[in-house]
């Protein structure tokens, strides 16, 4: 400020010379102008900031990750209970009458469903009212309720299972204003900014009204900031309570109002406002909050749910309904009163809504981030094809292969299985860890992944990253390498079960033993596998060589490069469960390998297809020998180390599998398959300490529960053209007929079945003559 001039010392009242006045005015003018210029520059800068940010990419939109949709068709093996569960998981609401998309009415043998519309990669599927008829085996008919015509197949909307957001980032599901329920729109304004449509960004009246309302209520009910100011604060500014920020906020609010319509501002607000926190993930906007708290789209929220979301706006942490349920309910009920006072709902509706519980979906942490281990796999598959920023900012829609039913079955089997075994072995709770993978046999889709017993929390993903010794899981590949040499080996080839000592390259002597530390005499090849005997396996391995086994492992899908040592034959190779699933999947698909995939399609946020992932197939192992080893693995299940599975699974379901145990019982594995599913289970300790469990005692019970819950198809063993089956006498391994009491139909590579009759065979009595006849013929 300019200093005033010293007063004159004359008697007469001093007369300020005109020049002084002019000078003073000039100074004021100059300073004013400078201030104005500075202010203008500030405003222009803020204006530019607003326009560029608001007009450009307004939000970074994390990619949305969807599970595979459930298909409904006659023959689908989903019973009434499972269908209800599926619908509830999708956030469908049970009603008497279908009163809108996302509702269903369930009877004993019939389910009426009002399906939500959904934009799939191949186009939109409009909402529809259908009726599904069911019996004990599953769906028998699907009928369109509007046209009363049968429908061959109906795709349900897929479940949103997660999103790919930046490390410390905002997550949101974008909604358009016309998708926002009227009660939410009006209710939000009545609580947060009653004069929204009248003010110019800042409301003087609003400040006074808020003061009045808050004083009357005795506590803060309304804030003084307008919706526009709140948006500016959320969008551009920090939350500091400083005067500069407050002034900037007001200027920007006014500017925003000058450039954009009320509708645009409200839409932005609805998508921007902070409504919750889930670990690193900040939940922004009502679109995501609706899924985060209630697991359904915004359009399907009911009065009490809308009121809760509106209530949370005031303080997502303070009113966090999962942590502070009572406080949140009080806030919700207060909001419901405001709704009633504003005439948005009736008295009766308010009372009904107040009577309802909060109705939150999910657990305490909740939210849509349900399957972190699977989403982790999806991210890895996308890596290299998309930039990180494409995934976190562009709102891509990723349609994955996750089958929620399989995922739930896997999680439940692991959690219950570990608890049971810890209890029975008197281990402290939480001693054991486990991971598992489920894939489809033909097509190689990953259907479920569990990375640890705390399956809801992203952490060390053991299914993908924990590479541990696979023990006897390697044996099928050792035996397969042998069976590929049809002129040397078949399933009945006798292997000695005798002690063996080997001098290794490092001069150490290696003397492996059987798991039960016993010798069992000579064993036919398939029995040695069924009982997982080590000594016959090492002997066989040494005959065919480490190289040949590694070759087979690689053809099955193993990506490592193990040392060529005899310990390889007993599984001294470190493999992650997901890769074990790949390897066993190649066997399950008769040697046709499908590289495991977790993604089907990727589209833009508008639904334009960007990428499709076709089924990929390549024959990497010969069909005949694979058939033989699969047959041998069915014997593992029938009479070997996997037989306990049949205490849970019906006898008629044919399964193939193999147990795996490592030195000192540090790792327990079970890997196997039915006609349509491959399952791999690992159990162990993170600190690598022995845990006293083998593959059969630690992993098999979990695997069996999993297979039972998956409702698998039986393995159909139809021999390929280069395989023939012949009755074998189980005692001698030779050709049998009805004369042999214990006989088994055994497959052989065509042309390599034993021609010699077993002594028990009726035909054997004439064998010498036959033999003579053969010579002459």
């Amino acid at each position, binding site marked *: 400020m300019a200093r005033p001039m010293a007063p004159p010392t004359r008697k007469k009242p001093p007369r300020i010379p005109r020049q002084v006045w002019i000078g003073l005015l000039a100074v004021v003018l100059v300073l004013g102008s400078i201030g104005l210029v500075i202010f203008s520059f500030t405003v222009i800068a803020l204006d530019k900031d607003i326009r560029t940010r608001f007009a450009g990419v307004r939000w970074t939109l994390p990619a949305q990750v969807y599970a595979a949709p459930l298909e409904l068709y006659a023959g689908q093996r989903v019973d009434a209970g499972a269908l209800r569960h599926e619908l509830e998981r999708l956030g469908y609401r049970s009603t008497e009458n279908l009163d809108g998309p996302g509702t269903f009415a369930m009877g004993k043998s019939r389910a009426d469903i009002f399906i939500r519309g959904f934009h799939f990669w191949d186009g939109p599927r409009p909402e529809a009212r259908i009726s599904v008829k069911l019996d004990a085996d599953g769906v028998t008919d699907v009928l369109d309720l509007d046209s009363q015509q049968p429908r061959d*197949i109906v795709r349900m909307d897929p479940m949103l299972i997660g999103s790919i957001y930046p490390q410390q980032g905002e997550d949101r599901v974008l909604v358009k204003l016309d998708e926002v329920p009227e009660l939410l729109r009006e209710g939000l304004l009545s609580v947060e900014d009653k004069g929204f449509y009248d003010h110019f960004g800042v409301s003087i009246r609003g400040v006074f009204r808020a003061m009045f309302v808050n004083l009357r209520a005795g506590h803060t009910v309304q804030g003084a900031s307008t919706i526009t100011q709140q948006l500016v604060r959320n969008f551009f500014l920090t939350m500091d309570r400083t005067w500069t920020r407050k002034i900037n906020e007001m200027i920007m609010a006014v500017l925003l109002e000058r450039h954009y319509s009320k509708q645009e501002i409200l839409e932005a607000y609805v998508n921007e406002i902070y409504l919750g926190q889930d670990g690193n993930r900040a939940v922004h906007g009502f679109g995501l909050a609706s899924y985060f708290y209630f697991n359904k789209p915004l359009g399907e929220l009911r009065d009490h749910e809308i009121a809760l979301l509106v209530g949370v706006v005031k303080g997502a942490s303070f009113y966090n309904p999962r942590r502070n349920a009572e406080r949140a309910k009080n806030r919700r009920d207060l909001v419901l009163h405001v709704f009633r006072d504003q005439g948005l709902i009736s008295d009766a509706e308010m009372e009904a809504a107040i009577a309802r519980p909060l109705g939150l979906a999910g657990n305490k942490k909740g939210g849509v981030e349900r399957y972190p281990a699977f989403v982790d796999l999806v991210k890895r598959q996308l890596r290299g094809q998309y930039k990180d920023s494409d995934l976190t900012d562009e709102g891509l829609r990723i349609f994955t292969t996750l089958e929620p039913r399989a995922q739930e079955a896997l999680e439940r089997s692991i959690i219950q299985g570990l608890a049971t075994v810890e209890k029975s072995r008197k281990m402290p709770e939480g001693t054991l860890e486990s991971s598992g993978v489920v894939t489809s046999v033909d097509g190689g889709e990953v259907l479920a992944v569990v990375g640890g017993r705390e399956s809801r929390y992203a952490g060390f993903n053991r299914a993908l990253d924990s590479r541990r010794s696979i023990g006897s899981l390697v044996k099928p590949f050792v035996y397969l390498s042998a069976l590929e040499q049809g002129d040397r*080996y078949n399933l009945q080839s006798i*292997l000695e079960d005798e002690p063996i000592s080997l001098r290794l390259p490092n001069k150490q002597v290696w003397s492996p033993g059987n798991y039960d530390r016993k010798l069992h005499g000579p064993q036919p090849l398939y029995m040695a596998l069924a009982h997982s005997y080590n000594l016959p396996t090492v002997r066989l391995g040494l005959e065919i060589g480490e190289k040949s086994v590694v070759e087979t492992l690689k053809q099955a899908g193993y990506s490592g490069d193990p040392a060529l040592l005899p310990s390889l034959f007993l599984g001294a190779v470190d493999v992650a469960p997901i890769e074990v699933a790949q390897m066993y999947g190649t066997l399950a698909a008769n040697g046709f390998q499908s590289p495991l995939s977790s993604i089907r399609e990727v589209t833009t946020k508008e639904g334009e297809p960007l990428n499709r992932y076709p089924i990929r*197939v390549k024959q990497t192992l010969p*069909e005949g020998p694979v058939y033989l080893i699969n047959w041998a693995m069915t014997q593992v299940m029938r009479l070997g180390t996997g037989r306990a599975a049949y205490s849970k699974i019906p006898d008629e379901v044919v399964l193939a599998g193999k147990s795996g145990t490592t030195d000192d019982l540090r790792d327990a594995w079970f890997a196997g398959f039915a006609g349509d599913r491959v399952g791999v289970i690992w159990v162990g300790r993170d600190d690598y300490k022995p845990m006293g469990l083998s593959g059969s005692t630690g992993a098999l019970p979990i695997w069996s529960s999993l297979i039972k819950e998956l409702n698998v198809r039986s393995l159909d063993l139809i021999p390929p053209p280069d395989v023939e089956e012949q009755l074998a006498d189980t005692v001698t391994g030779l050709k049998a007929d009805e004369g042999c009491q214990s006989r088994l139909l055994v497959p052989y590579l*065509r042309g390599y079945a034993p021609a010699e009759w077993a002594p028990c065979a009726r035909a054997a009595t004439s064998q010498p003559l036959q033999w003579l006849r053969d010579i002459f013929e």
Partner: protein
Amino acid sequence: MKTALSTLPVLRWSLAALLLALLGGCASSVGERTTRYPEQPPAQTGIGTVRPAPQPTAPAPNLPIPITPGNGSPVAIAPPPKAPEYPKSAEAISGQAVLSLMKQAREARAAGKFDQASGALERAQRIEPRNYFVWSALSRVYLDKKLYDNAESVAMKSNSLARGNIYVELENWKVISEAREAQGDSIGALQAQSRIDEIQRNLIGSGG
């Protein structure tokens, strides 16, 4: 393993082995140690003792040769029994949902929408994972999409599942032949063509 060792089979076996040894001069002899399995002359091929596999019986005419990895055409065709026994079209082995998706795929393909066509067939494949008609149709669409390598493999997969259904195999070998041709593998294409010719001859021969 079902029956425990009974004396009778051992005796019978011993007698039989003795007889064989006498008659044929075979080297088999019964070991002193009693096990469930007769001792065989050890084949000293390494450290383990492995019973020599029986000599292959003479392969029946037209029977495939056992395959090994790396063999150019891993799927051999079994001698066609009676062609008409095999289903000629998907209707015979498919559910309504799959047929509906296959129809969608046909329409999409006719309209040049190959992504839609393969998408519908992939859905069908998930419903009936072993339906070789679906795999066969899928191989044709992958061929349309110029995914030659995959088209060939998927056709092979269909062949493997078809277990001798020559109607499906005929279509599959056509895809394989075209896929190989498109990849510049003329010899492979010719081999596929010879399979086509063979199947066509069989079809004519069987009146199919």
